[in-house]
């Protein structure tokens, strides 16, 4: 239980996917303009990350590893994720139109999101068991959401400020991301000591 808690908390705060591992930067910079789309996108990411882990972990352990096909990991995972996203979209559209309305736009964008492929590969590399992998995915998704929501707040504050001409647009956003990332470094070493 303690191990699961450590995995969850360190995935959210210390190894934050966006601010420490640089995965999923594109949606982080692109969709964090306002709070509503930031939350929608992160919810879709959490959802797809959990689904993708639930699908890829058994595939790796029970299909690829016993047949020495580990080298097919990349190609199989990306196909599974792409197919899964399509499937989820169709199912949501048919049975949960309300949820599809709020998440639908973001789902196709996630197929080529490196955070999703990243989390599935890292789960295997770290040698997690199935539940540890699921918890890690959940934590990574929550961390992504935390970073997105925080950053959308930072960006809305930035909108009214006087920015030097060459820094307008993405450059100042990246500098703001640097400062946000700095604040997350403060969590380093906290989680391990929390449970000892």
């Amino acid at each position, binding site marked *: 239980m303690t191990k699961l808690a450590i995995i969850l908390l360190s995935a959210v705060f210390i190894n934050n996917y966006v601010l420490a591992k640089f995965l999923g930067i594109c949606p982080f910079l692109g*969709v964090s303009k306002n709070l509503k789309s930031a939350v929608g996108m992160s919810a879709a990411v959490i959802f797809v990350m959990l689904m993708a882990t639930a699908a890829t972990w058994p595939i790796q352990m029970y299909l690829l590893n016993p047949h020495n096909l580990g080298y097919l990991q990349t190609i199989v995972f990306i196909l599974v994720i792409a197919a899964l996203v399509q499937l989820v979209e169709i199912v949501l559209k048919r049975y949960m139109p309300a949820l599809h309305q709020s998440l639908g736009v973001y789902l196709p964008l996630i197929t080529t999101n490196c955070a999703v492929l990243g989390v599935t590969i890292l789960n295997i590399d770290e040698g997690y068991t199935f539940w540890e992998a699921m918890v890690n995915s959940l934590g990574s998704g929550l961390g992504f959401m935390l970073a997105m929501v925080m950053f959308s707040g930072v960006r809305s504050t930035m909108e009214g400020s006087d920015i030097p001409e*060459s*820094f307008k647009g*993405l450059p100042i956003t990246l500098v703001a991301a640097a400062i946000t990332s700095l604040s997350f470094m403060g969590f380093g070493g906290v989680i391990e000591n929390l449970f000892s």
Partner: protein
Amino acid sequence: MKTLNNYTKGLVRENPVLVLVLGTCPTLATSTSILNAIGMGLAATIVLLFSNILISALRKVIPDKVRIPCYIVLIAGLVTAVQMLVKAYAPALNDALGIYLPLIVVNCIILGRAEMYASKHSVFESAVDALGMGSGFTLALFLMAVIREVFGNGTFCGMDIPVLHENKISILTMAPGGFFVFGLLMAMMNKWAKHKPKKKDFGCEGCPQASVCHKTACSQAETPAHGKEETA
């Protein structure tokens, strides 16, 4: 002349990282040391070269409706091949790049060039375009890595630099430094490129998800880095 122009556009005017803002994740993550940056740049360039050649050669065979999945399978196969080569001949680089090596699959530069360029141009043109874009990617990575390694670690390709080695700014090699240096470089690029004739518009047209995206989740329309650039 046209071929040369086709090559050089990827270096500066349409630099994939600093102007088109594609492939940000590997740029930020692997630019902590110069050797890693060059390794990453080369690996991505090789994948890009072969994917552009193959996709351009197959552009009449691949049905339009399923082209994106086809491209992804092709690219994933190439990435796996490169990954195995790196594992066999440069194991140290494989450890250093770690997860970012398989993640070349989802690098937007490769899918973006396949969709925007290789699916419409001849094999030779696509190969030149891939080399140009790949060199631009490597160049941007190299620039960032030089700043981050020289000032952050006081070394150049692993060799100590006298004064800087004793006065290093370690934060530059950590995550915040990556964002910061990238922001500064992009600002420099904006400043520098402003007086030059802009070439092509990079909008949602080139984005693989354009058909489903409806511009609701894309900053491309607003960012001055590329959205508003028009033919001069």
